[in-house]
């Protein structure tokens, strides 16, 4: 199947054979696919490597046959987004998260759009922590793992802003026992649902919650980016 001008983000590239690259791409209409870019590591390659770097929107022409696609052409769409510093590290986290949570050949236009706007926010220097939480929320939503942020998981009662909750990945928010550690406030969950940025303590609680939920959906195991970013002193 020949596909032209498909909006795409490259997530990751690894050397393949002598002069080729194996790209992991997020396309808008064909989901995540593996793409072989033949000969692009050659010195005089027709297609420049810099166009196949992550974090820039490109229009991809490729042939899709079986598991892997073959790259035919790629050209940038719009201006390149420049992620620097913490935003760059966060971008690598986004990529690992998307690759680990999505399946290949599963079209998810909502994930593609959320990813694109998240990169834009990171490039524009919006606060990294809140930007990532919004993306995680939208990603889980699009993949059918939506968080229950407005009602209690067991009773179905509306969450109380001043209430203290424990979040269980399979069930949702349930009222915390007295003195339970790692709780999250009702108002933080409601803020996330309404797309309002909570305070620093709220962000920290949501970050912990997201890690727990993502770990659950990964089927155990960790994201590599957590350790890299954690040690780099990046505030997320």
């Amino acid at each position, binding site marked *: 199947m020949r596909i032209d001008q498909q909006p795409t983000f490259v997530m*990751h590239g690894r050397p393949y054979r*002598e002069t080729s690259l194996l790209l992991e791409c997020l396309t808008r209409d064909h989901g995540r696919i593996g793409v072989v870019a033949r000969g692009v590591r050659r010195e005089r390659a027709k297609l420049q490597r810099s166009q196949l770097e992550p974090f820039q929107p490109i229009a991809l022409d490729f042939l899709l046959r079986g598991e892997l696609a073959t790259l035919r052409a790629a050209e940038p769409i719009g201006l390149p987004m420049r992620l620097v510093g*913490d935003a*760059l590290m966060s971008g*690598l986290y986004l990529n690992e998260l998307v690759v680990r949570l999505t399946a290949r050949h599963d079209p998810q236009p909502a994930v593609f759009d959320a990813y694109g706007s998240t990169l834009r926010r990171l490039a524009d220097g919006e606060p990294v922590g809140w930007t990532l939480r919004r993306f995680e929320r939208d990603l889980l939503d699009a993949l059918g793992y939506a968080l229950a942020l407005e009602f209690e998981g067991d009773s179905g009662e509306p969450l109380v802003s001043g209430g203290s909750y424990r979040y269980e990945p399979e069930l949702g928010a349930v009222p915390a026992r007295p003195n339970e550690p790692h709780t999250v406030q009702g108002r933080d969950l409601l803020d996330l649902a309404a797309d309002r940025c909570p305070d620093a303590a709220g962000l920290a609680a949501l970050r912990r919650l997201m890690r727990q939920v993502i770990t659950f959906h990964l089927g155990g195991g960790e994201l590599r980016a957590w350790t890299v970013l954690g040690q780099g002193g990046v505030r997320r």
Partner: protein
Amino acid sequence: MSSSSKLLAELIDALRCLPGVGGKSAQRMAFHLLERERQGGFRLAAALEAAMRDVGHCSRCRTFSEEPVCPVCASASRDKHVLCVVESPSDLVAIEQATGYRGLYFVLLGRLSPLDGLGPEELGLPMLAQRLGEGEVEEMILATNPTVEGEATAHYLGQLARAAGIRVTRLAHGVPLGGELEFVDRGTLAHAFGSRQVLGS
């Protein structure tokens, strides 16, 4: 590939582990060695055996070396206050050949890449942090590649060096010498434009 000799078949198969060598080239190499280069073949075998057995990594900079400390790190004429961090031994060689750099190196043998499972531990960063803590290094030159992962690595290393109170510099990016702006890709041109310099008098 049918071959009358088992040893010959084995040799051809072994040669295929080299980059860019497929069945056909491997066969050509094997026949060439057997027909015309027996001496060269023995030399190759001995060199290969010795190198595979004895070449390890320098305990200071992690580049390939058969000594515990490589000649560059052991040299007294090198400036011990400047440390250049590169991704691979081939990058080290490129800098040695192209510049008059007289400082020392640190070779990461990779770059930060969560999706490849490469983190700070795999790149020897605890070892680098310890070295920065020794207080001898005054400037760290970040010569990782200008790729997304190379930039992320540079950012991480920059934080490491700043925490140790060391001056950090990064290789400049820009238009290649002898190049024409018309044919330079957008990203590079945008970068070169953004980090333009005041023209010296």
